[in-house]
């Protein structure tokens, strides 16, 4: 909390000439039975008190899902078969991470500010501790990035932010169907010369709704009733099929 207040103070103190005014197409996503992914629109404008200084201005938008503990395992050949051998535990890796930019990350963002704001995928993950049982967690983390990029959980969308007249920007971020529940943080950065000159953040709540919510809560809170219900369903369906079959035959 102290750090946050300090950061806010730092932001507020210098009357910077350029700042972000931002909005989101929605601040909640409901996972219902027919949920098949969702698209959120992040949009905004650059507000200027004075004429824009020379040089390019860039925008980066990140969306980060709730962090979850993760275990990364590696298979190795033992006695002719491939089995899991080594494992690396990560206390908190984002369940979803998308970073959209107006240009190549390497050229628009300096290492110092990347370190400070944890913007690139590597920083967003490595900022959190990795408890390891083996030698090299970096190799495991790289593997997790590769797998989660393939699953579209992690996305690097360089050049995906539309930026009109150095003023209006928008980015469409697709949330996949296998979302984890929780708070998704949307951050918007305004950059000049690789340095962050303004930042904004918003929160999107992702929640199971309706039937999904009900079944999930029941399974977690009343596992015995839920289990009995599952069995009852199976017995009724089995009996129903048998009865229907007899009717068809008769």
């Amino acid at each position, binding site marked *: 909390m102290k750090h946050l207040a300090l950061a806010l103070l730092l932001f507020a103190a210098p009357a910077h000439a350029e700042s972000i005014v931002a909005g989101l197409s929605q601040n909640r996503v409901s996972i219902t039975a027919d*949920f098949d992914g969702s698209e959120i629109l992040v949009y905004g404008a650059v507000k200027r008190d004075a004429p824009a200084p020379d040089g390019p201005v860039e925008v980066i938008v990140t969306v980060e899902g709730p962090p*979850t503990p993760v275990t990364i*395992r590696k298979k190795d050949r033992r006695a002719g*078969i491939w089995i899991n051998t080594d494992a690396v535990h990560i206390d908190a890796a984002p369940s979803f991470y998308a970073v959209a930019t107006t240009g190549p990350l390497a050229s628009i963002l300096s290492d110092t500010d990347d370190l400070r704001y944890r913007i690139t995928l590597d920083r967003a993950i490595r900022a959190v501790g990795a408890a390891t049982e083996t030698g090299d967690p970096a190799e495991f983390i790289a593997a997790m990035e590769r797998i989660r990029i393939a699953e579209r959980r992690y996305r690097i969308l360089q050049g995906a932010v539309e930026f009109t007249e150095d003023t209006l920007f928008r980015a469409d971020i697709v949330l996949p169907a296998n979302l984890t529940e929780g708070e998704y943080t949307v951050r918007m950065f305004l950059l000049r010369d690789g340095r962050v000159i303004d930042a904004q953040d918003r929160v999107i709540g992702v929640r199971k709704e309706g039937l999904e919510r009900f079944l999930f809560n029941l399974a977690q809170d009343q596992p015995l009733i839920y289990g009995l219900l599952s*069995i009852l369903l*199976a017995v009724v369906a089995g009996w129903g099929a048998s009865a229907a079959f007899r009717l068809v035959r008769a």
Partner: protein
Amino acid sequence: MQLYLPIAEVSVNAFLLLGLGGIVGFLSGMFGVGGGFLITPLLFFIGVPPAVAVATGANQVVASSVSGVLAQLRRKAVDFPMGIVLLLGGFAGSGVGIYVFQWMTRLGQVDLFVQLSYVLFLGLIGAMMLQESLRAWFRAQKGGPVRRSHVHTWVHGLPFKMKFRASGLYISVLPPLAVGALVGFLAAIMGVGGGFIMVPAMIYLLGMPTKVVVGTSLFQIIFVTAFTTLMHAVTNQTVDILLALLLILGGVIGAQVGTRVGVRLKAEQLRILLALLVLAVSIKIALDLLIQPGELYSVMPGVLP
């Protein structure tokens, strides 16, 4: 139509699930097995997490077994005392199985354990059944003498004898208890009802007449899989009721069609086909273990203590 599964936390096509349930139900109706040994790997394949696939597979087997046992009951082909003895063994085996499953999950070797069990048991049963059914088929072709179904072995020398009227047996309760325990154990770790192990064990090990085997096996499978489902629901919260509903709906429809096709085939032909199917599944899983996987790493949510 995409459907989001609340426990598995994946979005899958509802018709695909109905279809999967239907195919498995068809085979189950045709061969008189629960079909769990097929549904669990198929669910892995479409992206359902293994733990959810195993628990939900058990739930689906409850439905197909209830349906099957009701049909057998009308033919008076269920040996209840035998079923209850098998069941007692089954509960013990199932309890141990769930414990081993949790232990393996903690070690991160649960996939390997399930896969090895599959290869071992499916391979063994498939090969035995294929050999037996091919021999029966050739014998039928030649028109040779039918082998005695009831042969006295060391099994009949054990203590604690009991009468099983419907099966026409007077044997010790120990072998049925052991068979029940083994099947219950497998049901818990593999998400299968164990029909494909139970049926041959009852015929070959216990010497039960074939006509009461299917009904009795299904009778006890209902309870073992229901118990397994409940245990998974309570200890792991991994039963996905929505997934189960779709599989069951497809399954019961498929089972009706399968039963009708099944009655047109000869018993040996049916057993050869089932043996080939069981062997194919086992070979596929064995290859997965032997061939280098494309991705050596896997990511699992959650840090297990």
